[in-house]
């Protein structure tokens, strides 16, 4: 790992700087803080959408990121915030570190680790932010490592699965992974040996463990439902992975190619490695959001294979550890982290100010007297105003709990199909936030009945000047009568 720690230090510096200076890449953090505040105030986790939306009040909601939201609320400013953001960055670093250490334990050489950790780091890059799923990354790495352990410590995976389920719904992967390990182990052992029995117990136990959260079995049910949810077609993160995605092209794809060339050839563990690689390859080729978890899972498997396949990257023959080696084992990670902190501080000091999110037009709207029914052309923008006293949103970054009918109407307006104006009228929208000069912006400027309330280089806020042509809005009750087909979540 000696070179690997240096590579991790580079990424750590970048992650720390990004987390502290640019924590909010979209509007999610805003509504998550609002969620945290709600939990702190009421002492309960909301289970349905409330009056902050006018399109689907009362729709069932499973706020899987409750723990993250609570932390984000508690550490909302000052040094507490820096520490919270730093902790999220350290989760990404920890994921790389755990996967790298596991690869080293399996025989990957230092050169291989340096190269492949760099690929894995790139794979995390685009998805990284102060987001709930980042907290799950080290847990995935730890869970996979614990499954490898021969002995009773492997059962610690159950604790990891339980913790995981309180942070992110991807915990649903835990029993699936353990199941794949069990089948692979049975193939490796050519029968049901001790290891296979242990893994089978962990797989069954993981099913129970991921229900150890405030939502119980609803959490895995929700995560499974998400796989078949039609709303995925409207959400960028769920689009099929493309070579244009930098994190895929320069991170996951090289790891995938190395996996394809080297194969799961490790003697005695071909089944387990093969099944895990195939499972994660399916995920990464199916949706761009799975790029980071593929890299975390693939690194420990492909790194040793890469070391064996290429002479220059081969591991040196084992030799007795000297005192300096033992010292280096601790000194390298510590000095790497210290280096990362120094670089991160410098990056933070010289970083340009955060890009302008849609705060300014939303503040302008909040200043307009009366209650507003807001439609955002990018639903994530509306996340910034969730909980505002005089603004109710059509669709926001919580995304998943909104019924499919709301999503269809959203697409109807954003894509300007023939019914877009009727849809805005029918839903009683009286404020529309658009990207300047976008198609919807042009359509609103061409039609009558709308006026510009706010405009800057990026956004334009339109307010209705005339009553909607069709006065009958969908009532809250009607909206509730159109329930979501399943409970779903975006992040």
């Amino acid at each position: 790992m000696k070179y690997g720690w240096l590579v991790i230090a580079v990424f750590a510096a970048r992650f720390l700087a990004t987390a502290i200076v640019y924590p909010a890449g979209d509007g999610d953090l805003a509504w998550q803080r609002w969620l945290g505040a709600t939990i702190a105030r009421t002492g309960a986790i909301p289970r349905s959408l409330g009056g902050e939306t006018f399109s689907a009040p009362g729709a069932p909601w499973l706020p899987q990121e409750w723990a993250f939201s609570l932390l984000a609320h508690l550490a909302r400013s000052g040094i507490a915030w820096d520490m919270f953001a730093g902790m999220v960055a350290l989760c990404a670093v920890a994921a790389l570190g755990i996967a790298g250490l596991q690869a080293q334990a399996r025989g990957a050489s230092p050169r291989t680790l340096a190269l492949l950790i760099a690929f894995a780091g790139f794979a995390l890059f685009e998805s990284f932010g102060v987001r709930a799923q980042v907290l799950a990354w080290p847990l995935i790495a730890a869970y996979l490592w614990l499954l490898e352990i021969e002995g009773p410590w492997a059962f610690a995976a159950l604790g990891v699965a339980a913790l995981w389920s309180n942070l992110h719904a991807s915990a649903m992967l835990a029993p699936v992974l353990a199941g794949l390990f069990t089948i692979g182990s049975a193939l490796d052992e050519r029968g049901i040996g001790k290891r296979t029995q242990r893994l089978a117990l962990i797989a069954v136990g993981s099913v129970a463990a991921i229900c150890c959260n405030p939502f119980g079995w609803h959490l895995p049910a929700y995560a499974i439902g998400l796989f078949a949810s039609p709303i995925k077609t409207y959400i960028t993160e769920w689009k099929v992975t493309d070579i244009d995605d930098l994190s895929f092209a320069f991170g996951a794809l090289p790891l995938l190619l190395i996996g394809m060339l080297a194969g799961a050839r490790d003697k005695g563990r071909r089944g387990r490695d093969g099944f895990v690689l195939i499972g994660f390859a399916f995920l990464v080729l199916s949706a761009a959001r799975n790029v980071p978890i593929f890299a975390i899972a693939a690194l420990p498997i492909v790194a040793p294979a890469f070391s064996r396949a290429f002479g220059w990257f081969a591991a040196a023959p084992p030799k007795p550890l000297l005192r300096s080696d033992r010292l280096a084992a601790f000194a390298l990670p510590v000095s790497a982290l210290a280096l990362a902190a120094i670089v991160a501080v410098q990056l933070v000091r010289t970083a340009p100010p955060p890009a302008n999110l849609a705060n300014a037009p939303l503040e302008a709207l909040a200043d307009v007297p009366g209650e507003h029914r807001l439609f955002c052309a990018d639903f994530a923008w509306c996340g910034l105003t969730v909980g505002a006293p005089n603004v109710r949103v059509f669709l926001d970054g919580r995304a998943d709990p909104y019924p499919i009918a709301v999503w269809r109407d959203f697409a109807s307006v954003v894509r300007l199909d023939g019914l877009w104006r009727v849809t805005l009228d029918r839903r009683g929208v009286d404020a529309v936030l658009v990207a300047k000069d976008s198609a919807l912006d042009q359509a609103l400027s061409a039609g009558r009945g709308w006026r510009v309330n706010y405009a800057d280089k990026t956004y334009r806020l339109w307010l209705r000047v005339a009553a909607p042509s069709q006065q009958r809005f969908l009532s809250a009750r009607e909206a509730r009568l159109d329930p979501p087909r399943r409970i779903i979540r975006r992040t």
Partner: protein
Amino acid sequence: MRAIVALAVILSIARSSPTAAFAFERWYGERIAHGGIMLHLGAETFAARDSWSGGLGWLGAFADYAVSLGGRAATLLATMGGALVMLALVEERARRAAGALVALGAVLLVTACSIDGLRPGGGLESAVFAAALALLLERPGPRAALLATGIAIVWCNTGPQGLFASAIALAFAAGAVIERRDISQRYWAIVAFAGAAVATLATPAFFSYPALAFEGLRIDRAFQGLVAFHPSEVAPLAYRAGFMLIVFVALIAGAPRRAAGEAILVCFATLLALANGAYLPVFAVLVAPSLARSVASSWPRLSAMRLGWTKLVALGTICVLAVAMLAGAATTGLRPVSAASEIAPLVQLLDRDGRTHRLYCATPDWCGEAIAAGAPGVSVLMDGRIYAYPFEVRAMQLRITALKAHWRRDLSLERIDALLLRRDRAMATLMAATPGWRVAGSSATATLFERTGAAP
């Protein structure tokens, strides 16, 4: 079992309809047959008339036209022939190192990966050329080098994909050098590469072929928004049923050991498939036989397996089910929707008034179809030969398509008086509300707008 796979492929092609690109190829071939190779764009476009196109793909277009003279049956038979030759070449290469059973697996993988292309104009000819080249170059020698050069020349004249010939030859030559094969093999592998490289100059485009062909491959993301690239859009079924399956097998088996050339080939083919889904069959024919070899060396029992009657029946059933599933899926609407039959009537509607029209299409390939519809009064802003259009025209097409600033001014400046738009897209809605334009016709996916007054 081979016969069962072949039968399924034949049935799938027999029930297919030509792609939209095939109509344009036939039009292009007809022009070549009557007027010689077109080195420049003609009056079919108003924005880039006389722009250098180098006659790219003239031989392929001419062949398509010649075959189509025999009617639909001849076209389908030619496609079937191409597909079967491709599978035979793949099986031959796979059998060299693996047994019959494993080779059959390779054939099935290639079939799955080609499922969206099993139709006239589906682009299988590139896969045939690639399979033939790989078969030859695997065992370098004077005969292989000569034949490879010949194939590369024909391929380069058939289309821009001819560039792949030199890439494939380079992979094998690099492999021969890295693997330190004997001096003669290294020499002939390098000669084959040199031959394939020189072949890129043996087209009417001469020195401009590599540059034109690279753009014609449609792997350059500068065309984002103009053409579809991603395999899940271009060939959705092949991506899920074929590409993913090959990746999974590769993750288990790996590439053959001590075969650097094949490792390079696997990387090249995978990147190609991800860059543009149209090349999934090329990916499959290059990678599947390598995997067969790797599987055979990892599980020697499989390659040595002799098929008893029971195993034969069981395997046969599995093959029939797999192929029937693929063939069924391919013919029941899982293929990407093609508006092949929708564009021509709309353009003829436009041409009926006897006036000349300047047409913009939301998708350049639609304009290719509009040209192929044979409406003499209609010329287009840009058709599917994007590589031949100057930067300014491409930029304008992109500006209009993305509704960027001044797109309406572009329409006026170019005196465009007809628009072929997707019905469900924003531009159609905006135009419907724009004074001075009217809907002249529409189909299931497209709407034709016509200017009712003079351009301002």
